[in-house]
């Protein structure tokens, strides 16, 4: 089960499991973001490279406009994967 929601405060709420089956739905939301936004991982249990690639593509697009994604609320397993990927160098990450 995966849920994604963009709030009026420009917070993208993720929950459940962000795997290969969820990228199309996630791209619809991330693709609509054109300003700096926060991605809230608090309720996200799992993410694979498919989900991380959606974040990376969005970060590239936003940085070209001087904007960015900020990530917050990761559980330790997700945080570890982001570290292995070196994403802590290209995203502003605040752990839970």
């Amino acid at each position, binding site marked *: 089960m995966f849920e994604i929601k963009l709030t009026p405060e420009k917070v993208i709420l993720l929950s459940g*499991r962000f795997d*290969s*089956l969820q990228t199309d739905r996630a791209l619809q939301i991330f693709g609509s973001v054109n300003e700096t936004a926060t991605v809230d991982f608090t309720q996200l249990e799992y993410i*694979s490279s498919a989900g991380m690639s959606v974040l*990376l593509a969005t970060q590239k697009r936003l940085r070209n406009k001087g904007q960015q994604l900020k990530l917050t609320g990761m559980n330790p397993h997700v945080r570890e994967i982001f570290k*292995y*990927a070196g994403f802590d*160098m*290209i995203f502003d990450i605040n752990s839970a």
Partner: protein
Amino acid sequence: MRTQFKRDIQSISSVFEFAKSFVQQNQLDSQTAFSLDLILEEIFSNILKYNKGGKAEIGIELCLDNNILMIQIIDECSNPFDFSEAGSYDSSASLEKRPIGKLGLHLVKTLTDQISSDYQTGFSKLTIKKKLKELHV
């Protein structure tokens, strides 16, 4: 435990259920469960990505021996493939130079201790070993 999976990305949900059963049966911890799901998803999706024309189901076998988790992924309709020759991923590259792909196999390599691949005329077997912590649960 061994099961065959239909060659379709939708099968990934069944792959996760299979992994969950193995984790519960062996009382593995949440970190191992996360890593197992990630490894299986990355390899399974990679097989589909690079051999779309294949028809055979994909076999996955999991076993635990002396605190070593062994994962075998068997494709009987495979293109020639050598995991050791899979492209490298620079996790220190700048955002501008960071590729969108290749991350999955990098994570698999990072999360595991030993990977070997064997290919013989359409049959490929990937064997992955991961040492687990002494205490489960």
